């Protein structure tokens, strides 16, 4: 049991550290995500930025292919980081619950 407790504690520390890092990485990504709107058959690019409860759309007009690619990469990265952060939060909650178990607590 002592070994299990030690491993769980180490894993919890790793997950808590990772949680902070993913939160920081998400904060550091450029704000907003690009959306393409189809209006009367024409494609327009907007940057959607959340401001409190509202989502504000900033018209960006035409973008160079390079810039567009970069924004798409950021969008993908943000989605991955969010997914990973959600996974880590679940791990943290599971590990805390496991460590709070009566048998492990008594060690």
């Amino acid at each position, binding site marked *: 049991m*002592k*070994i*299990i*407790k*030690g*491993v769980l504690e*180490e*894993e919890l520390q*790793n*997950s808590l*550290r*990772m949680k902070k*890092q*993913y939160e920081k*990485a998400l904060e550091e990504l450029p704000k907003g995500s690009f959306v393409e709107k189809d209006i009367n058959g024409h494609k327009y690019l907007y940057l959607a930025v959340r401001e409190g409860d509202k989502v504000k759309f900033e018209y960006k007009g035409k973008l160079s292919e390079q810039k567009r690619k970069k924004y798409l990469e950021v969008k993908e*990265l943000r989605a*991955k*980081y969010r*997914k*990973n952060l959600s*996974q*880590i939060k679940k*791990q943290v909650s599971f590990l805390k619950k496991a460590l709070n178990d009566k048998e492990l607590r008594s060690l």
Partner: protein
Amino acid sequence: MHLFLQRLFREIDYNSLIRTRDIDFLVPIPPVFKEKVDVHELLKDLGFLIDFHRDGYIRLVHPELIIEFLVPERGRGFDKPYPLPQLGVNAQSLRFLEFLETNSMKIESDHLILNVPHPAAFALHKLMISERRPKEEKRIKERRDAVHILNCLIEKGEKEIIERSFESIPKRWKTKVVNALRIAEEERFNDFLK
């Protein structure tokens, strides 16, 4: 390593006691690479982040995997992480790793050829480093894992490989193995590991 051991000992139902997320890559010194690869840039697409450990060495982290690079520590050792500019990372130096480097075997997994330590060397190495672990539970875990692997090898009829690996190590390392087994109260190895 866990999956490899599970595959190797499938007839005797190997089960690791505990599995963690760590995966370590041993880099020989001097490092030889055919080309320069930025490992973090490659893994970034999978959502990996760079984690700078307080001792200065780099880990690549993901909710499912924690990747670290290791180099064998020789002589007085290195007080800083060992730089690996060819991979865009650095490595932590650890004792006795050259033993794993020279006692490795090739396996194929998911169309990849992997160099993994031979289980006998892996187990003996765990015994050697067990006493260097600062936490008691870690020391116990290293010893238990090692004994479990050694038992599986004996059950598989590979006792001679353990003996050969043991014979190949320096006397001081042998003492560490024997001491760790004595602490673990594992007397079944006394007849051939002494």
